[in-house]
């Protein structure tokens, strides 16, 4: 019997990690490539999961431990697939590895970040604070190894980090390299991006300071976020006591995203708990079209929030969001469709439930892959041996991504088994 082929997983977020570790634990070798310097993807930016309100790093920790103990998983960060050719059971893939400028000798001591003179917006926190060009995203990042941002680093002319590193871990002359791998199956798990808020003109187009996105809210509430978990409004760092959540910000809208982004209702309900727990006197108002909390646990969670006297639900689409220039408060205008009444209300802060855009809308995967007009992978038309996971096919939550990634793992081993 010939040896089983390897499986390539493109994308190191929760779906990709799940696909990789589940495939490996079925007895197959896996290569996983992640575009950014760290694994974990979107969920590492979340404070808590709905509906259990448990921290995502808990499940990640277990998966990282499974990876460490498996021995059958090859990890590549800063890696992007450049070319795919071949067919089921025999795909040749070219992968470009960008330099980290930090090698395996890094011990995670933070000396490079302390020495680095370059400040840049912290993308992990959606620009809500600054980071150095030598950085690690957070204290449970995996791998726990710093990275030098190639775009912002001043290079060898500066070299302050090199001097600060006692472990010979930083080499600013590292070059990109290309590797070729042969695999039996390929899993596409490149995930999603938040919808670009600047396109939402009537909702402030990202110009109003105290209007933030749901993903920014996750960072604000996270203990490893820009405010150490305190929910403070950006304009004056005061506690946000009176918050509006605007659902379907871009989603279910022919001018933006015609589909429903699945997670936003539960995400906003969850974020209501962040605020209500942190500030017992706070209030929240949710503007929605439909509250979509399918199944048992989600509906139960919704019911619980409905029982909170300080939370109001208003069925109606928001027509306009403006800023009070004096106070920087946010004015929301909407129609309550049940009563037909026009509403104009003032809030400390507004959270836009912006939706999911498949990463493949902007960044197509090289190879013969068909997409829907919104950029989702048209899964039914994929070549045999190539499988798409989770939010590349349709917006889904973490639980369904895990199911799907585990399901795709069996497809991969069918293709990789010789």
């Amino acid at each position, binding site marked *: 019997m010939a040896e089983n082929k390897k499986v390539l997983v493109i994308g190191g977020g929760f779906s990709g990690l799940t696909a990789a570790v589940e495939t490996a634990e079925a007895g197959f070798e896996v290569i996983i490539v992640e575009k950014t310097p760290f694994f974990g993807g979107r969920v590492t930016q979340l404070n808590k999961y709905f509906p*259990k309100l448990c921290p995502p790093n808990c499940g990640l920790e277990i998966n990282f431990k499974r990876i460490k103990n498996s021995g059958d998983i090859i990890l590549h960060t800063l890696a992007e697939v450049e070319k795919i050719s071949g067919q089921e059971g025999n795909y040749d893939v070219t992968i470009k590895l960008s330099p980290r400028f930090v090698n395996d000798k890094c011990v995670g001591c933070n000396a490079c970040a302390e020495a680095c003179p370059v400040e840049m917006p912290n993308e992990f926190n959606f620009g809500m604070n600054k980071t150095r060009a030598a950085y690690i995203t957070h204290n449970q990042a995996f791998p726990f190894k710093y990275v030098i941002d190639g775009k912002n680093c001043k290079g060898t002319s500066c070299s302050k980090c090199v001097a600060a590193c006692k472990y010979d871990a930083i080499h600013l002359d590292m070059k990109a390299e290309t590797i070729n791998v042969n695999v039996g199956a390929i899993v596409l798990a490149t995930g999603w991006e938040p919808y670009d808020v600047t396109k939402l003109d009537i909702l402030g187009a990202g110009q109003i300071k105290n209007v933030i996105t749901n993903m920014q809210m996750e960072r604000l509430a996270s203990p490893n976020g820009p405010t150490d978990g305190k929910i403070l409004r950006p304009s004056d760092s005061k506690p946000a006591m009176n918050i509006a959540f605007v659902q379907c910000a871009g989603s279910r809208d022919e001018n933006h995203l015609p589909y*429903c982004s699945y997670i936003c209702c539960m995400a906003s309900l969850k974020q209501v708990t962040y605020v209500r727990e942190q500030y017992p006197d706070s209030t929240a108002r949710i503007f929605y079209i439909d509250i979509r909390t399918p199944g048992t646990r989600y509906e139960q969670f919704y019911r619980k929030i409905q029982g909170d006297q300080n939370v109001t639900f208003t069925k109606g689409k928001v027509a306009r969001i403006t800023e009070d220039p004096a106070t920087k408060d946010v004015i929301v205008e909407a129609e309550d469709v049940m009563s037909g009444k026009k509403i104009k209300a003032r809030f400390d802060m507004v959270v836009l439930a912006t939706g999911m855009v498949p990463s493949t809308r902007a960044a197509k995967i090289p190879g013969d892959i068909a997409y829907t007009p919104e950029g989702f992978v048209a899964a039914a038309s994929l070549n045999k041996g190539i499988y798409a996971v989770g939010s590349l096919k349709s917006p889904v939550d973490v639980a369904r991504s895990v199911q799907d990634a585990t399901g795709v793992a069996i497809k991969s081993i069918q293709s990789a088994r010789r």
Partner: protein
Amino acid sequence: MEKKFGVYICKGCGIGEAVNIDELKKTTAGGAKIAAEAIREHEILCSPAGLEMINNDVKEGTNCIVVGACSPRVKFEEFDFPGALTERVNLRELVAWTMEPNTEDTQSVAEDYLKMGVVKLQRGDLPEPKILEDLSSTIMVVGGGFTGLTAALESANAGYKVILVEKEAELGGWGAKLYKETPRTYPYDKLDDPAVFGKIKEAEAHENIRICKSTVIEKTDGQPGLFDVTLRTNGSTETVKVGSFIMAAGWKPYDATKLGHLGYGNPNVITNVQMEEIAKKGKIIRPSDGKEAKNVAFIQCAGQRDMNHLPYCSAFCCATSLKQAKYVREKSSDAVAMIFYKDIRTPGQTELFYKNMQNDPGVLLTKADVTGITDAGNGNLYVEAENTLLGEKIKVEADLVVLATGIVPATRAPQEYLDGLAAATLKGDEAKKNYIEGTEKPEFILNLAYKQGPELPSEDGYYGFADSSFICFQYETRRTGIYTAGCVKQPMTMVDAASDAAGAALKAIQCVEHVAKGIAVHPRAWDATFPDPMMIKCTSCKRCTDECPFGAIDEDEKGTPFFKINRCRRCGTCMGACPERIVSFKDFSVDIVGSMIKNMDVPDEGYRIIVLACENDAYPALDSAAIKKYKLNPSVRIIPVRCLGSTNLVWVTDALSRGIDGLILLGCKYGENYQCHFVKGSELASYRFGKLQETLTKLQLEADRCQLMQVAISDYDALPKMIDDFVARIEEIGPNPFKGF
């Protein structure tokens, strides 16, 4: 194995600046009884030169390696010595990064940790997997509906033998009763033909699949790899051996006779299931008079999202009613469909189907609270509703009403019966007897011959669904080797059921592959250790059989516990439960941890506190606190454990009798929304701890000396203070009176 020790101390990352390494080496040699020449230091142990030093010793026969450096969570590739016992002593995060440098206290912490690391290896052994004989890799799929068929085909296509059991005479389940399916692909405008028939054909022709129709499971005995399943087909029985299960027993529609308030009972008020049957036959003909229905009203959430009926949402009914509205419209161009909903729930791309239907002028939709369905004469009905988009109170005439009824998992009736039985049993033998005689026993599904009960336990408050509580791990049941899929687990659409079935199939495959290697399944999927009880000392107290979260321990005829190793998840709960301390793993035992505790320094002056920390969450949180450079109280000694459930009370009593002033159990949240990855670990530890505190009080030791704290991996900011507060409380109470005895 003859042990040859090597102790390696790293001086990098601030360890050398915080600790006197020469002293550390000396005291370790003495305290841990290690030859001085076996203790080495290096400036940067994880560097190539440092690793070479260790590897040279390994070549010379060193096989017990104590690495005094950073946390075991990092540098795992570097400090990997196959075939050797390796213990990582966390001198960086738990000492150098969290203690004042160069103090007596800090030195003492480092010495204790290093000694404890050595003791752990002195007492432990290399794991050797236990592989049971005559293992089967056949996968049994329970349920021949869409989900079960998908699971069977996926497993079979991956090369595994499958036995598919269906209790009905035909395969297909509810999926075969559908006229059409909701669109699955872009642009979501055309209804699809039911997919299940193709799957039936494929399964029937598949060489790896054996199909047993009209068959139920009479009994399931054994364990993963070695399940003996007794099947009954039309009165005859047969026992087959299988390796693992996919449980896809499916669902039943909610009993519509309970929906009299929505007009059920009137022949022209039908359920969504009946609607499929009608559509399958041709025109939408209403039952009362065979007239073609032209004004069809759909009532969403009929008996759902309703505390008097099903409190939950069945997830697919909105799309189903939209689909059935399309039947109405396609079969008769002048027909009208009216949908009364609470919220339209068409998440993801299903929204595009909703949009397509909204664009059909013959489909009317309104949010509404339906208050009644009443007879309008001529077989027609009035739908009366409040709070609608069309007005506060409306009354609309329809010639057919379709109730979007929800689903009830097949596991619910057995679960309710068993819950009732358990409650009756608590009341005594008489009540139990009355219950058994007076209650109709529902159809059981698996009939497990397990001490902990015959079915998959469902979680409290989740309506009998056999679901996983873990968002990250969707296939976690409390019965190892039995994986659920489809609507028995959660209400779900067919698209979701297909991927769920494939996922469950993968887990079933992993299970048979892992038992063949003698290693655990999730979450310790690499672990080759197993509980090895010294049965000669067992008193048959049965605490282990009661407490094992996974039902891994049965009893033989004499009532003696019988460990079914392949059901074991290696959490160590049995080890924690056993009052005789007879359960051990090769690298984790009552003796190992007990010896670590016995070997730590207990000062005459000052305080000593032990923290037993869950290695999955509490320990990484401590590491993260260290990365943030918080200070940890130098009175504490942290010992990671597999799960708090493995905490044996003898550790606590021994520690207290040695003069240790207090103990913290640092574990995961339990109860509702529990986060323990072994389900019950921290809860059981808390239960045992509660008992212990009574004993302490009797011994005139303050109960406050022991505390269980529930923490999450993200609690690193709070943890140092929680520990400080505990130490402060101990200081208030004063030193342990047993100190010095």
